């Protein structure tokens, strides 16, 4: 077995193959070279006709033949149909949700527009000022501006 081999490498690159590696590959992937790592198939095919290679493949092939006997029936029409129906329901529901969100979005945009419009009106429109101030005769900086009693007294 290759040490430190990464997923990206996939397999070894060396062209030649020894019996040990050949046996390890057969033990893992079985006797059919089509299941072997792509990069090692060619080297495996070169080694395979040897006596050792044939013995290893025969041994692995015995289990392969047993495994091949276990077949799974193709999916029946009912299952196929129910999966398609579920898909139909899902996509219809998704379209409805999209419309719903679209409606909600439009309503939101409308509401936001109304709020923005109100805000704009309140900013742009100048504050209404009265034409003149009606001053309370008593509201001066000096407080009560009524005729000075003392002055009246003096006049008397």
């Amino acid at each position, binding site marked *: *077995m*290759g*040490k*430190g*081999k*990464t*997923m990206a*490498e*996939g*397999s070894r690159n060396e062209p030649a193959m020894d019996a040990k590696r050949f046996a*390890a*590959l057969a*033990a*893992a*992937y*079985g006797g059919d070279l089509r*299941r072997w*790592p*792509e990069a090692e198939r060619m080297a495996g095919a070169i080694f395979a006709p040897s006596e050792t290679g044939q013995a290893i493949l025969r041994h692995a092939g*015995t*289990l*392969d033949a*047993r*495994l091949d*006997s*276990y*077949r*799974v*029936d*193709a*999916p029946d029409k009912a*299952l*196929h149909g*129910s*999966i*398609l129906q*579920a*898909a*139909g329901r*899902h*996509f219809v529901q*998704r*379209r409805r949700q999209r419309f719903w969100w679209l409606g909600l979005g439009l309503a939101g945009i409308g509401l936001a527009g109304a709020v923005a419009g109100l805000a704009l009106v309140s900013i742009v429109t100048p504050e209404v000022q009265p034409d003149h101030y009606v001053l309370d005769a008593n509201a001066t900086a000096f407080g009560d501006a009524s005729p000075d009693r003392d002055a009246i007294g003096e006049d008397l």
Partner: protein
Amino acid sequence: MSADPDEELVRRVGAGDPAAVQTLVARKLPRILALAVRMLGDAAEAEDVAQEAFLRIWRHASRWRRGNARFDSWIHRVTLNLCYDRLRRKREWVTDDLPEMVDPAALPDAHPQEDAVRVERALQGIAPRQREAIILVYYQEMSNIDAAATLEISIDALESLLSRGRRSLQAILARDGADE
């Protein structure tokens, strides 16, 4: 990494194209169902898993982006996770309700032990991770790179699981008296 043969189809499914939905079901259902049947050893449960796996596809198709794995690897991973959920539940149920395991071979009405039945039982008898590896590489005919990506392990770890799994299968089948 090479191009993903399913990428364009999944994109169309994500857009809600009914023809793409049909094509995807025709292309993937046999694989997904076979994977679930062999993982669970129960055809009815496998059908439930297949339906659930497709619901996940419909939900994720519009958002699916190829990362490190192909779509086929992703849906295999999803299916395996769904199988594991069921295996866990089954184990809990067996532990909770049955004091001891029943040997199906001992049942008087058991069918004649055909080779396929023996292999099916042998597959259920090995460690789930070894079973996964063998199913992906042997039955699903995944490349070692895709199988390792699906199982999220290195190639070395995959080869180790495969070797140990095949050895275990051989031992079980030999014990079962089926080896020639």
